[in-house]
C-alpha cells in the first residue's frame, strides 16, 4: 500500500477520536518539549562558560612554581619561590609560539583616597597584561614597559574600586595611597562583571609587578607568569617550549620532576565545558524519561484502539488486507501520533526555552541537534511502542474478528 494513503487513513482514524488522540500525543508533546527546553538550558550554560573562557583568551597559558618538597616535607602548590623575571623574559625570547608574557605578583592592600578607604586585590603585572587577558582599558592608559622597568608608582583601577573610591568623579591623575605609599591613577579598566560566587573580577588594582615586588612585598621572585600563545592551535606547542626553556634554566636533570607547572587555558576551558556537558546530558536524560512515559501512553491507547476496532480489522481482512497491511496501518497511526506530538513538542520546547531566558538570568540555547534528536527519539518511541499493538492487530484471525461483538 502506498505510504501517503496509509498516512491519510491513519490521520482519518486519529481524527475520529480527536480528544483522545490529543491527550495521547500530549505525553509526547510534553516529553519532547521538556527535552528541548532542558537541553537548551544545559547548552546555554555551556555556551556561557565557553564565552567567559574565550573572553579571558583561549590561547592563554599559566606558569606557576611547582610543589616543593624538602626532606620529605611537601609544601603546597606554588611553594617554590624559584620563578624569576629572567625566566619570564627567557620564555618570551626563546619560545617562538609565545606572543606576550606578563610576570605576576599579587597581593592585597588597604587603599585610601581622601576620607574613603577600601581593601582590594593588587595585581602586579607586566605591561602586556590587557592584551593577554583580552581586557580593555576604559579611560586613560595601561602602564608602559617604561613604567615597569623603572618600577613607577602608577596604578590602573578596576571598575569596582573606581566606583567605591571615586563614586563617578574622574580618577585620572589623582593620588591614592596603598599601604601608605602614594600611587598616581593613570587609567581605569572596563568592567568584566562578576564571575560568580563572591569573587568580583572588577575589585582589583593593577600596578607594575616590579613596583609590587619592591614597594609592597619586598621580594625579588615572581609568583606566576601569564603567557599568550600566538594562536589557540599553537598553545600546546607553546606549552612544550616553555617546559623545555624552564627545565634548562632551572637545571633539571632528564627524568627528574619539574619544579614548575604550566597549564593551558584551553584545557581548563575544556574541563569546564565538559562539566556543563554532563549537566546537559543529565537534564536531557531526566526529560527523556517523560518522553518514555509518553510512549507508554501511546502503547496503552493503541492497545485500546485495536480492541475497539477488532471488527474493522476483520472487515479489512475479509476484503483482502494482508497481515502486513494491518500491521502498517496501526504502526503508522502510532508513528503519526508521535510525530505530530513531536512537532508540537518542538514548538513547546523552543517557546519555553525562550520564556526561560526571557524571565530568568539563565542563558538558553536551542540547537538544531537537540531538536532533531528529540524528534527522532519521539518517532522511535512511536515505532517501538506502536509495534506491539499493531502486531497484535495483524495476528487476529479474520473469522474471530468478524464475529467479535
Amino acid at each position: 500500500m502506498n505510504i501517503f494513503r496509509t498516512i491519510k487513513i491513519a490521520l482519518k482514524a486519529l481524527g475520529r477520536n480527536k480528544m483522545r488522540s490529543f491527550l495521547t500525543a500530549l505525553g509526547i508533546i510534553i516529553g519532547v518539549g521538556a527535552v528541548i527546553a532542558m537541553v537548551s538550558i544545559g547548552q546555554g550554560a555551556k555556551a556561557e562558560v565557553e564565552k567567559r573562557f574565550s573572553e579571558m583568551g583561549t590561547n592563554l597559558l599559566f606558569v606557576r612554581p611547582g610543589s616543593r618538597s624538602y626532606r620529605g616535607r611537601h609544601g603546597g602548590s606554588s611553594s617554590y619561590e624559584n620563578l624569576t623575571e629572567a625566566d619570564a623574559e627567557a620564555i618570551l625570547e626563546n619560545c617562538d609560539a609565545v606572543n606576550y608574557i606578563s610576570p605576576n605578583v599579587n597581593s592585597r592592600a588597604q587603599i585610601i583616597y581622601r576620607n574613603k578607604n577600601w581593601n582590594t586585590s593588587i595585581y602586579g603585572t607586566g605591561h602586556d597584561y590587557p592584551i593577554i587577558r583580552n581586557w580593555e582599558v576604559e579611560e586613560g592608559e595601561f602602564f608602559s614597559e617604561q613604567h615597569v622597568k623603572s618600577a613607577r608608582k602608577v596604578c590602573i583601577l578596576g571598575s569596582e574600586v573606581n566606583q567605591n573610591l571615586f563614586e563617578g568623579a574622574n580618577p585620572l591623575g589623582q593620588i591614592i595611597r596603598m599601604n601608605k605609599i602614594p600611587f598616581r591613577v593613570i587609567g581605569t579598566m572596563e568592567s568584566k562583571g562578576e564571575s560568580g560566587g563572591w569573587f568580583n573580577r572588577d575589585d582589583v588594582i593593577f600596578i607594575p609587578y616590579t613596583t609590587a615586588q619592591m614597594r609592597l612585598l619586598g621580594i625579588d621572585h615572581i609568583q606566576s607568569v601569564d603567557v599568550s600563545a600566538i594562536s589557540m592551535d599553537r598553545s600546546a606547542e607553546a606549552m612544550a617550549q616553555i617546559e623545555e626553556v624552564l627545565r634548562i634554566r632551572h637545571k633539571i636533570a632528564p627524568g627528574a620532576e619539574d619544579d614548575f607547572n604550566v597549564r593551558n587555558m584551553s584545557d581548563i576551558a575544556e574541563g569546564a565545558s565538559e562539566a556543563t556537558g554532563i549537566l546537559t546530558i543529565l537534564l536531557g536524560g531526566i526529560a527523556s524519561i517523560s518522553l518514555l512515559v509518553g510512549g507508554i501512553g501511546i502503547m496503552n491507547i493503541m492497545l485500546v484502539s485495536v480492541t475497539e476496532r477488532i471488527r474493522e480489522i476483520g472487515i479489512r481482512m475479509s476484503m483482502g488486507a494482508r497481515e502486513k497491511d494491518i500491521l502498517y496501518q496501526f504502526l503508522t497511526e502510532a508513528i503519526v501520533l508521535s510525530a505530530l506530538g513531536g512537532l508540537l513538542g518542538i514548538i513547546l520546547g523552543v517557546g519555553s526555552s525562550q520564556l526561560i531566558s526571557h524571565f530568568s538570568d539563565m542563558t538558553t540555547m536551542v540547537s538544531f541537534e537537540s531538536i532533531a534528536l528529540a524528534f527522532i527519539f519521539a518517532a522511535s518511541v512511536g515505532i517501538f511502542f506502536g509495534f506491539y499493538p499493531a502486531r497484535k492487530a495483524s495476528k487476529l484471525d479474520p473469522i474471530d474478528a468478524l464475529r467479535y461483538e
Partner: protein
Amino acid sequence: MNSNNVLIKMEDLTKTYQVGETQVRALRGISYEIRKGDLLAIMGPSGSGKSTLMNIIGCLDKPTNGRYFLDGKEVSTYNKNQLAGIRNSKIGFVFQTFNLLARTTALENTELPLLYSNTPTREAKKLAMKALAQVGLEGRELHKSNQMSGGERQRVAIARALVNSPSLILADEPTGNLDTKTGNEIMDVFKRLNQKNGITVILVTHDPEVSAIAEKKMHIRDGLIESLE
C-alpha cells in the same frame, strides 16, 4: 461437464475443531462442484456446519482434510497471505450485519477492497462509483454509513463486494437484518447481478424465502450434504 465451467470444486472437505478436550467435527466430508454463473443457496439449521463451509469457500479458513479448488487453483494449500490475495481478487463478501466501516462514506467503504489491490486512487474512485450505480445508489456516494437505512447499507456492502469484479459473491444471511420488503429488494439485486452480469452468487441462509430465488439448493446437516435440489 466442461471442466472450464467449474468455478469451485470441493473434494471430501472436512473440518475439525478442538474445543477443550473434545473434537468438534464441523464438516465431515463435503464434495461438490459449483459452476460459473450458478446461483446457489446453502441452507441448514444453526450448528449444521454451513458457516464453516462458507468460511472455507470464502478463503477465510482452510479445511482440515480434503481439497478445495477455486478457479482451477488448489487454494487449500495456500498460506494466510495468499488467501488474503485470493479474497481480494476473487471473492466479494456480503454479511448479515453489513459490516461497513462506521462513520465512513459509501464511496470510501466501496473503495476498501481496491485499497488492498493497490488500485490507483483515481481508478479506484471510478470503479467504486460504477459499483454504487449498479446497486442503485447514484447520488448517495458521500452519505456516511451511519446516515443510511439498512437496505442502503446492504446495497453499499454489495457494491463493495462487486467492486473488484470477483468470480464469486458470498452472502451470509444478507436479508437477516432487513424487513421483508427491503429484503426482497436486496434479493432482486442479487438476482439481477446473477442473471444480467453472470456473477456466481452463493447465499448462505436458513430462510426458505431467500433460497426461493436460487436455482440450486444445498441442504447441510451435521457436517454433511443432506440433500441437493
